[in-house]
């Protein structure tokens, strides 16, 4: 008797499941409609000077790239294909293509904010393309190609902006949500100490807290917020007043100048031939509904 009870519960749940499986979900329908987009061009005839990183990667025919798995529009894991999708991922495919490496030979690794530098330093990844802001402190340990995108810290509030938050100065006395250990959170803590910080480990929790009215605002890079607003247009809105500059770069091993030049050249080429804008339209642009912005200027420091 004791042993059978859980099985009875299981059976009941299976029945409920069978009934529910009869209905279809919006998410399921959407997945069916999704068509796959064009693959990045692969340079089959690429050749590089022997001894360079490019030659090694071309020879191996494979590359490992670190990206985020939880940033809508930039790097987000698709549960069906088990591969990340987004603007960062498209950038990775462009570079791999120029190295003569097809998409299916790219190994994607999840990098989180806390381990991007160490992954590069330890050689666990060849490149990090992970909403990775170029700054001087990070330049001490890794090198950056790019920037390939200019983001800025912004604020997301409940629809209609009931508290009238127009910029970071209005956050005084308000409850602001961000992610523990992130640069935007650090910025609020040092420069706007009057704001009360609520810190989770991921932004999706911040969005839930804002929906529930547990916090007054969410702050981080505008591109991340755009993804959150896109999912709940009736609930959220973006203040649209970026107050920092976050140039996103591509992290690679410190001192590998030829590889950095190569990535920079590839980026510039994609700016000019429109593949950069196409990548934007297919990913971040598709979510936010925004046109591709002007490409940033590569910083060959």
């Amino acid at each position, binding site marked *: 008797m004791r042993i059978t009870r859980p099985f009875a519960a299981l059976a009941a749940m299976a029945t409920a499941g069978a009934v529910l499986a009869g209905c279809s979900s919006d998410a399921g329908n959407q997945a069916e409609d999704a068509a796959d987009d064009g693959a990045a061009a692969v340079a089959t005839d690429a050749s590089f000077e022997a001894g360079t990183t490019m030659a090694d990667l071309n020879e191996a025919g494979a590359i490992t790239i670190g990206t985020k798995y939880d940033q809508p529009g930039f790097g987000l894991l698709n549960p069906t294909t088990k591969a990340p999708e987004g603007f960062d991922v498209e950038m990775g495919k462009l570079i791999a293509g120029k190295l003569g490496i097809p998409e299916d030979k790219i190994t994607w690794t999840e990098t989180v904010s806390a381990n991007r530098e*160490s992954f590069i330093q330890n050689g666990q990844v060849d490149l990090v393309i992970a909403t990775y802001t170029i700054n001087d402190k990070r330049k001490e340990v890794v090198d950056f190609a790019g920037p390939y995108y200019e983001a800025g810290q912004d604020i997301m509030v409940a629809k209609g902006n009931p508290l009238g938050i127009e910029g970071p100065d209005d956050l005084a006395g308000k409850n602001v949500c961000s992610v*523990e*250990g992130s640069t935007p959170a650090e910025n609020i803590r040092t420069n706007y100490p009057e704001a009360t910080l*609520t*810190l989770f480990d991921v932004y999706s929790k911040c969005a839930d*807290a804002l929906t*529930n009215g547990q916090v007054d605002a969410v702050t981080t890079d505008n591109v991340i917020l755009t993804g959150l607003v896109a999912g709940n247009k009736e609930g959220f809105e973006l203040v649209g007043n970026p107050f920092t500059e976050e140039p996103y770069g591509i992290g690679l091993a410190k001192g590998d100048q030829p590889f950095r030049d190569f990535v920079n050249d590839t980026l510039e080429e994609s700016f000019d031939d429109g593949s950069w804008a196409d990548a934007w339209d297919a990913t971040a642009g598709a979510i936010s509904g925004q046109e591709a912005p002007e490409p940033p200027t590569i910083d060959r420091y």
Partner: protein
Amino acid sequence: MVQFFIDNFPLLRDAFLKTLELSVLAGLLALVLGTLLAAFRVSPILPLRGLATFYVETFRNTPLTVVFFFIIFGLPQIDFAVGFFTGAVLAVGLYTAAFVCEAVRSGINAVPPGQAEAARALGLTFGQSLREVVLPQAFRTVIPPLGNVLIAMVKNTSIAAGFAVTELTASLQRLSNANGGEILLVLLAVVAGYMLITLPAAYVVSRVERRVAILR
């Protein structure tokens, strides 16, 4: 290195106090609720027994992270939003209560049946025999396991880091991000913070354990 500790002492101290505060409040909640549940589990009223059993089985088999999620983001779905710290106390307290209940119940079962029989023969009611005779004896034997449950609870408060409570583990995440090079120091400081609570507690438990063992 010294500079690092001077710079970050306020954060680490506050985080430590937060862990302590969370532990004490959640511990009190767990002790009270857990004892009540244990009484339910041995009571003559079937729905109470069923309710307590259901409670214990549910909470014992659910990861604390999931419990946290339901308290912080599930309760608003039934229009009962709680503050983040209150939510953390509730999550850790409710979760630990299930384990306290099991510890107390095993203690009740360990009290020789003759004790309860004698209490009953004297004409005490269920509540009286539990309160006056069985529980006082049960508590003595359950102090060691109860102590272990509470020590485990202190460690479990670390999960609150993911739910907007700046306790020790959250400070570990914050400082390790800001001080890549000193990550080992950060880790040592946080580990020391936990040990400052768990080791003395473990010592007290083992002392009590020894004394109770002699008494028996």
